[in-house]
């Protein structure tokens, strides 16, 4: 068995060969897809559980208190206890709500985030779908989530939900622009939309260092717009607890609420992993380019000791921590201020940034 933790392509090919040699082609394909699907479901669930616990602990330390510490040592089983409780809750049926849409909405949100996760490179050999339009695909699929939110708000037959869903719809549609354009900035630098090519192109240094000023500005814009995309942090007026009770998921209880909750954390994970992949090099360890001298080769070898998967997880966790830090520090923005921020500040800066990056790439002024 060739299980090389630094390069899992040989392991994947071994499984592939095993299946196709022993079974008819149709069944081998079905079983392979099932295996990948189950692996992703497990990964999704485990990361979801871990992120909920991490948020509660980070939030507690920022607020100068302890956080969950009773269920299990240091409270690590707290999320499991929460999900068992949510599973056992009564699913209250609403009287005059549109039943089909009401039940469909949480699933749309989950499916949208699930489709986006499939295209992210987790490590060398751990890339499920490698389109040549990878960036475009991720952007397109993650914007399907807004349909779920609008459906949830509409079909709840509740004024609060409707206000929350409308606000959220306006917000997500506006910030799609900023997210897309900051990604386009890096596509200019990398020369391709395929995610694996983008990661490979950072072998001599991450893009945030090589594409100095415009890449840094694009990173800041992406973090702000990405937080707004996921209805989190200072942009969470769609579910503003102190204003509208719970916004668009007021009427949901039990497992359906758990879906919305989980999908929000997974969206945060997706935004963080796209930021880590495109700006900070994905699974590529921290390399210095040969421009700094001969000693960089030895340095790069040392950096390569840590397997790529752990680099990826580490970077994503740092970006997630920054997003959580935003949420627990700042007050909320009002809807008109939020839209003003996007259309009057982020959009012009983004356009200017694209031109700047194009100029730099043409002139060769990057590292």
């Amino acid at each position, binding site marked *: 068995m060739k299980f090389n933790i630094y390069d899992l392509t040989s392991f994947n090919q071994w499984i592939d060969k095993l299946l196709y040699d022993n079974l008819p082609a149709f069944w081998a394909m079905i079983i392979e897809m099932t295996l990948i699907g189950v692996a992703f479901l497990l990964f999704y669930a485990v990361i979801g559980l871990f992120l909920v616990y991490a948020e509660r602990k980070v939030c507690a330390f920022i607020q100068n208190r302890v956080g969950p510490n009773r269920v299990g040592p240091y409270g690590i089983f707290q999320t499991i206890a929460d999900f068992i409780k949510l599973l056992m809750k009564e699913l209250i049926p609403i009287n005059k709500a549109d039943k089909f849409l009401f039940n469909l909405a949480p699933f749309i949100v989950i499916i949208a985030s699930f489709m986006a996760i499939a295209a992210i490179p987790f490590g060398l050999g751990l890339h499920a779908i490698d389109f040549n339009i990878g960036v475009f695909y991720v952007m397109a699929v993650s914007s399907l989530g807004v349909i779920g939110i609008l459906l949830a708000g509409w079909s709840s037959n509740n004024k609060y939900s409707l206000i929350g869903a409308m606000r959220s719809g306006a917000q997500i549609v506006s910030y799609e622009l900023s997210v897309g354009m900051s990604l386009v900035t890096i596509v200019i630098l990398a020369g391709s939309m395929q995610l694996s090519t983008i990661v490979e192109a950072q072998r001599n240094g991450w893009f945030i260092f090589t594409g100095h000023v415009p890449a840094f500005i694009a990173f800041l814009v992406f973090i702000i717009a990405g937080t707004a995309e996921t209805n989190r942090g200072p942009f969470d007026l769609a579910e*503003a607890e102190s204003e509208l009770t719970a916004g668009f998921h007021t009427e949901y209880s039990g497992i359906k609420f758990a879906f919305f909750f989980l999908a929000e954390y997974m969206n945060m994970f997706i935004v963080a992993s796209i930021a880590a992949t495109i700006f900070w090099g994905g699974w590529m360890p921290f390399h210095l380019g040969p421009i700094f001298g001969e000693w960089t080769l030895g340095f790069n070898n040392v950096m390569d000791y840590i397997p790529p998967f752990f680099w990826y997880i580490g970077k994503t966790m740092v970006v997630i921590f920054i997003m959580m830090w935003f949420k627990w*520090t700042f*007050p909320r923005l009002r809807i008109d201020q939020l839209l003003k921020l996007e259309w009057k500040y982020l959009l012009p800066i983004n356009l200017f940034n694209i031109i700047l990056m194009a100029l730099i790439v043409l002139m060769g002024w990057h590292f």
Partner: protein
Amino acid sequence: MEDLILDNNTIQEEEYIINMGPQHPSTHGVLRFKVSLQGETVLNVQPHCGYIHRGIEKMCEKLTYQQIIHLTDRMDYLSAHINNEAVCLLVENALQIEVPERVKYIRTILSELTRLASHQLWWCAFGMDLGALTTYFYGLRDREPILDIFEETTGARLLQSFNTPGGLMNDIHPNFIKRVKDYIVYFRKKLPEYDELLTGNVILQERTNDVGFLTLEDAISYGVTGPSGRASGFACDIRKHHPYSAYDKVDFKEILYTKGDTFHRYKARVEEMWESLKIIEQLIDNIPDGDYTAKMKPIIKLPEGEYYQRVEAARGEFGVYILSKGEKYPYRAKFRSPNFSNLSAINKMAAGYKIADLVAISGSLDLVIPDIDR
């Protein structure tokens, strides 16, 4: 803005009515707002109060003057000590009893500590209403030492009943002076953090600047007192204009602004916290020796007539009116609650702005609902 404000009976097209009901995470108690909206803009706000009416004024007609004290605690429970002081001062002034100097100093120090604790709780709840969820915990953490000071001297954290007509129930604990001094040092270091975290924040300034104006004429005619009124220019600080207890012996500023928007109401309270620290510092080293109560008869009977005493509670002017027919029970007791008058101005302030602004405005008015309903 004037043409958007309607009266309560006509409903325009595209107008819908929302209930920010008695159970709501941000209305600081059981208060119901009936808000009529057009899109996101508020046209009309109608508060409905009375969900926590307990008949305190009626109960006072069967209680002696020492027993009324424990009921005044429970109205505006965040300025409990100041409310107690109002009734005691009324009885002492009516019977013309001279309380010892020591009592006056201790009452003032405890009042200012109460005011500080009340403003801290307001600050943390205001941040939470606007979405900055960490401020809640910082405010509560800084309030804990004050509650420890209260518990050590009076026996209770919030509803103290420490005052009694003629003086105090008990002398201060020997540790009191040291604890208060340590707390002043501790809090002076923490208060600039409040400014860094919330006051200077660009998001807060965008949300509270030029929102919810209250002009000086409106403040006077609605009777909005306290820091909310002083932010509109209404010079109504009773500690300055009709001093009682030891307030004429200390030097402090009356915080007045003229703009009258939500940000200046916020700033007035934060500045008042600094002034309270200054007052406590001036008094804590100079407490004169003496008795902790004056000699009083066990059964107190006020001579026939009407009496009124006003004090500066943390939210405004708290007034006690007693009509006595010469017996040991008052014939009629009426409490002028500051929150009731502050709340009455909310339609004037909030009409024409958005729902999110309504939350910010009612947070900056610092309402405590049991005081409205009594």
